[in-house]
C-alpha cells in the first residue's frame, strides 16, 4: 500500500526530523561576499533608499568596526568570518510585485509548504496578516488594504523608509541605539528587510500581524529590522516565525526589533523561533544574535514578550523592556528548549524607571542531549521607580545527564519602596511522574512530552492560539529521542 501524505508527515514528525530543512530552487540576485562601504551602498541602492538612510548605515558601519565581539555569554562560538557572507540575497522575480499574482509561484509554494498561507482568499477573513520575508526582501504582505482602512500601517521596512520617512527617522535606533552592542551595530549597517507597523491613536488592530522569516540562500546572513509603534490607547498583537534550510555550514541571523508603546498602548510580541538547529553532531545550524527591546514610553503602557525558542545552533537573545511610563508594565514569558549540541543564552532585561512600573518574568529552560541552556536576566530599579514591582521565576528542567542548565540573574535595586522577588529552581523529570503516566498506558516519549508541556504551561497560555498548537508540537518534536 502506498503511504498517504498524512502518514509520511506523521512519520516525519515522530522521527523528529527538522521539517523545514528544504531549499527552494529559485534564481537569486546576490551581493558579492564581504562587508565594506560599497556593499552597504549596494544594499541601500537596491532598496532605493534616501540619502539619510545611507548615511545612517555608513555611520553604523564605522561604529561596528571599532567594536569587539561580546564574550560574556555562556556560549562557545567559533569565530565568525564576517567577510565570508553575502549580505544581500533576493529572489530575482520579486522586485516590487504589485499583487500576489505577480509573486513567483515557487515562493508561494515555499510558504504554503511552511504552512503560511499568503493567499488571502484561503484564510478565514480577518485572522492574520502576514509579511513574508525571504532572505533579504519582503516578498508579500497580506491584508494591507484591510488594515489601511483603520489607519494601521503594515509594510516591509524598506517601503516604510521610502513612504513614511518621518516616522522611521523619528523611531529607528531610538530604542536600540546603533552602538548598543556589536550585533545591533552590524544590523544597523546592513539590515535588509523586516516589518514596519504603526498603529494610530485609539486603534485596536483588527487582526493579528505576523512576519514570517525564511533564510533560503546558502552563505547568506539575514539581518532583519522590525519597528512597531503603538500610539496612545492602541493595541497590537504581533507574531514572528522563522525557519531555514538544513545545511552543514553555520548561517548568521542578526536582527534588531524595536517596540514603542505610548500612553495606555499595548504591544504583544510573540515569537516561535525554529531556525535550523544543526544536526545531532552539532554540524550546521543558525547563529541567532538578536537584540529585541521595547520602550514603554507612555503611562500605563504595556509590552509583553512571549518566546518559544527551539531552533538555532546558538541563541543570543534578550528581549527587554524599558519601563519609562508611570504604571507601565513589562512581561517576559519564555520557553527555551535545547537538544543535541545546541547552545542558548537567553533572558530579558527589565529597566524600571517610571513610578509604579511592574514586570513579570517567567522563564522555562529545558535542556536535553548535550546542550547548554542559560537564562541571563537583569532587573534594574532606578531611584525614581517608586513602588516598582518585579516578580521573576526561572525554572530549568534537565533531560539526560550530558546537558547543562544555568541561571544568571542580575538584580540591582536603587529604590527602597520597590519590591523584587526572584526564584529559580532546577530539577529533572521525576521517575514518579513518568511511572504515573506509563502505568496509564502512555509511552515514555509521550509522557515526557506531556510533563514538559505541563512545565511550560504558564508560557504556552500566553501565545496566540495558532502558535500555541504549533509550539506544543514543536516541543514534542524537539525532545524526540532524548529519553531512554
Amino acid at each position, binding site marked *: 500500500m502506498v503511504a498517504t501524505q498524512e502518514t509520511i508527515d506523521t512519520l516525519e514528525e515522530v522521527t523528529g526530523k527538522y521539517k523545514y530543512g528544504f531549499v527552494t530552487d529559485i534564481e537569486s540576485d546576490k551581493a558579492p561576499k564581504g562587508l565594506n562601504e560599497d556593499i552597504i551602498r549596494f544594499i541601500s541602492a537596491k532598496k532605493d533608499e534616501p540619502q539619510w538612510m545611507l548615511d545612517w548605515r555608513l555611520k553604523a558601519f564605522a561604529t561596528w568596526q571599532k567594536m569587539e565581539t561580546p564574550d*560574556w555569554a555562556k556560549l562557545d562560538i567559533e569565530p565568525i568570518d564576517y567577510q565570508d557572507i553575502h549580505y544581500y540575497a533576493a529572489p530575482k522575480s520579486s522586485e516590487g510585485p504589485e499583487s500576489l499574482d505577480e509573486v513567483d509561484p515557487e515562493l508561494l509554494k515555499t510558504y504554503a509548504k511552511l504552512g503560511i498561507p499568503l493567499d488571502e482568499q484561503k484564510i478565514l477573513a480577518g485572522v492574520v496578516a502576514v509579511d513574508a520575508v525571504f532572505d533579504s526582501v519582503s516578498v508579500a504582505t497580506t491584508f494591507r488594504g484591510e488594515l489601511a482602512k483603520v489607519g494601521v500601517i503594515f509594510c516591509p521596512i524598506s517601503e516604510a523608509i521610502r513612504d513614511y520617512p518621518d516616522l522611521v527617522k523619528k523611531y529607528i535606533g531610538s530604542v536600540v541605539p546603533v552602538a548598543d552592542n556589536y550585533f545591533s551595530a552590524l544590523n544597523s549597517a546592513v539590515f535588509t528587510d523586516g516589518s514596519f507597523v504603526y498603529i494610530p491613536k485609539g486603534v485596536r488592530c483588527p487582526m493579528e500581524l505576523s512576519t514570517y522569516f525564511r533564510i533560503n540562500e546558502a552563505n547568506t546572513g539575514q539581518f532583519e529590522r522590525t519597528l512597531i509603534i503603538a500610539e496612545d490607547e492602541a493595541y497590537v498583537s504581533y507574531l514572528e516565525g522563522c525557519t531555514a534550510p538544513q545545511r552543514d555550514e553555520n548561517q548568521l541571523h542578526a536582527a534588531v526589533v524595536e517596540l514603542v508603546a505610548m500612553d495606555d498602548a499595548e504591544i504583544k510580541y510573540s515569537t516561535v523561533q525554529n531556525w535550523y538547529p544543526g544536526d545531532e553532531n552539532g554540524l550546521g545550524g543558525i547563529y541567532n544574535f538578536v537584540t529585541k527591546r521595547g520602550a514603554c514610553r507612555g503611562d500605563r503602557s504595556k509590552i509583553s514578550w512571549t518566546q518559544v525558542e527551539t531552533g538555532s545552533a546558538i541563541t543570543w537573545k534578550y528581549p527587554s523592556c524599558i519601563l519609562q511610563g508611570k504604571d507601565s508594565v513589562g512581561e517576559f514569558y519564555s520557553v527555551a528548549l535545547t537538544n543535541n549540541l545546541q547552545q542558548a543564552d537567553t533572558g530579558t532585561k527589565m529597566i524600571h524607571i517610571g513610578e509604579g512600573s511592574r514586570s513579570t518574568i517567567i522563564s522555562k529552560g529545558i535542556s536535553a542531549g548535550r546542550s547548554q541552556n542559560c537564562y541571563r536576566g537583569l532587573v534594574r*530599579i532606578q*531611584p525614581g521607580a517608586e513602588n516598582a514591582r518585579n516578580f521573576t521565576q526561572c525554572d*530549568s528542567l*534537565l*533531560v*539526560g*545527564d*550530558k*546537558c*547543562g*542548565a*544555568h*541561571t*544568571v*540573574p*542580575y*538584580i*540591582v*535595586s*536603587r*529604590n*527602597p*519602596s*520597590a*519590591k*523584587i*522577588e*526572584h*526564584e*529559580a*529552581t*532546577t*530539577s*529533572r523529570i521525576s521517575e514518579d511522574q513518568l511511572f504515573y503516566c506509563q502505568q496509564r498506558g502512555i509511552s515514555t516519549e509521550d509522557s515526557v512530552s506531556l510533563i514538559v508541556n505541563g512545565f511550560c504551561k504558564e508560557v504556552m497560555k500566553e501565545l496566540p492560539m495558532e502558535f500555541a498548537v504549533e509550539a506544543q508540537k514543536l516541543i514534542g518534536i524537539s525532545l524526540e529521542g532524548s529519553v531512554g
Partner: protein
Amino acid sequence: MSVSTMQPNLDQLAGLTGVRAGALTRWQETGWPHSRVEQWRFTRLASLEKMDLRPASAAAVTGTAAISADLPKNAAILSFSNGVLDVADLAVLPVGVKASFLNENDTALAALAASVPASHPVSDLSLAVMTSGLHLEIAGKVDVPIILAFTGDDNGVSSHPVVSVKLADGASAVLAEWHQSAVGLSAPLMAIEVGDKARLDYAKVQHDSAQSAHLAATGLTLGEGSVFEGFQISVGGQLARLETHVTLSGENADCTLSAIYLGRANQHHDITTNMSHAKGHCLSNQIIRGVLDDSARGVFQGKVHVAPDAQKTDGQQMSRALLLSRKAEADAKPELEIYADDVLCAHGATVGELDETQLFYLTSRGIDRDTARGMLISAFLDDAIDSISHLGLAAMLRPVTTAWMTTSNHSEAGDQ
C-alpha cells in the same frame, strides 16, 4: 592594565621561589581587576588603586590592641597584628592542634594555593607578600574554640595574614575569625580543609575600622560525610568583600554558609560565594540577609555549580536585602550552573523595604514606630542567626547585630 600604586615592596620580595614567586608574577601581570571583569562588576576597586599602601612586615608597635568581642570563655586566641602572628600565642593551643609555619614549606603552600580562589587578586597578592603563614593541623575532637583575632593600627599599610587549617578525618573543631583592624587594607587568605567525617563550626566577623578596606579570600574543601557550619557577618570597613569558594569534594558532605551584612554611611559590603558540588549526594544551604541604611550598598553574588557526576545534589540559597534609606542600593546575582540532571537546586532573592502592614500592626498595638522598625529588622536578621547551632559562636555573633541596631538611626528622617 593599570597596576595599583599599591605595589608590594619588591626589594623585600627578591629571591622568592616556588608558589609565592608564581603568585607574585600573576599579581604583577593582572593587578587589581578593572571594572569590566565580570566577578568584580558590582565591587569596584578604583579607590584602592589610588591608595598608597605598603604591605606590613611587622606587628604594630603599640602591641596587640584589645578586641571588643564577646568571645567564648574557654577560647584559645591567636593574635595577628598588622597581619603578623604573635608567636607566643601558639602556647595556648589546645591538645590536638599542631601549629607550623607555611613560609618555609612549599608543599603546604602549594596545597593552600590549590584550595583558595584561583587567579584571584587577593590570593595572589597575599600569597606573594604574606608575613605570617600559619598552618594548623587538627586531629580528634577539640572542644576549645580557636579564635584568630586580627588587629592593626597603621592605615598606611596593608596586612596579609595567611592561614591554612586542616581537620583530619573524623576530627571536630570550632574556629572563628575576628577582624578589628584599622589598617588601610586587610587581605586575609584562608584555606580550610575538612577531612572525611570531620566537623567544623566556623564564624567570621569583619569589624574593621570605618576607613579600612577588607578583601578576604577563603577556600574551603569538604571531604566525604563532613559537616561545615559557617556564618559570616560583615559590619565594619568602608569597602568589604568576603569571598568564599567551597568545594564539596566527597559524597554526603553538608555545608551551611550563611551571612549577614549591615551597612550604613557610604559602606560597601560584598558577600561572594562559589559553592561547587564536585561529588554527588551533598547538601549546601545558604541564608543571606542584608540591611542597608544611608548611602550604603550591599552586594551578594552566589554561584552554585553542580558537576556532571554530582547527582542527588541539594543546593539551596536564599538572599534577602532590606533597604532602609532612599539612597541605599542592593545588588544580587545568584547563579546556578548545573551539569547533572538528578538534582534539586533553588535560589531566591528579594529586595524591599520594611513591610508597612507589619509596621502598622505593631504601632496599632501601642509600640512607637522606631521601636517597631527595630523589632522588624531584628526579626529579619534572627531568621539567619537562629540557624547557628554552636551556642558559643551564636553568643559571639548575636551582640554584633544588636550593637549595630542600637547605634542605628531608626528614625525615618533619611527617608524623606
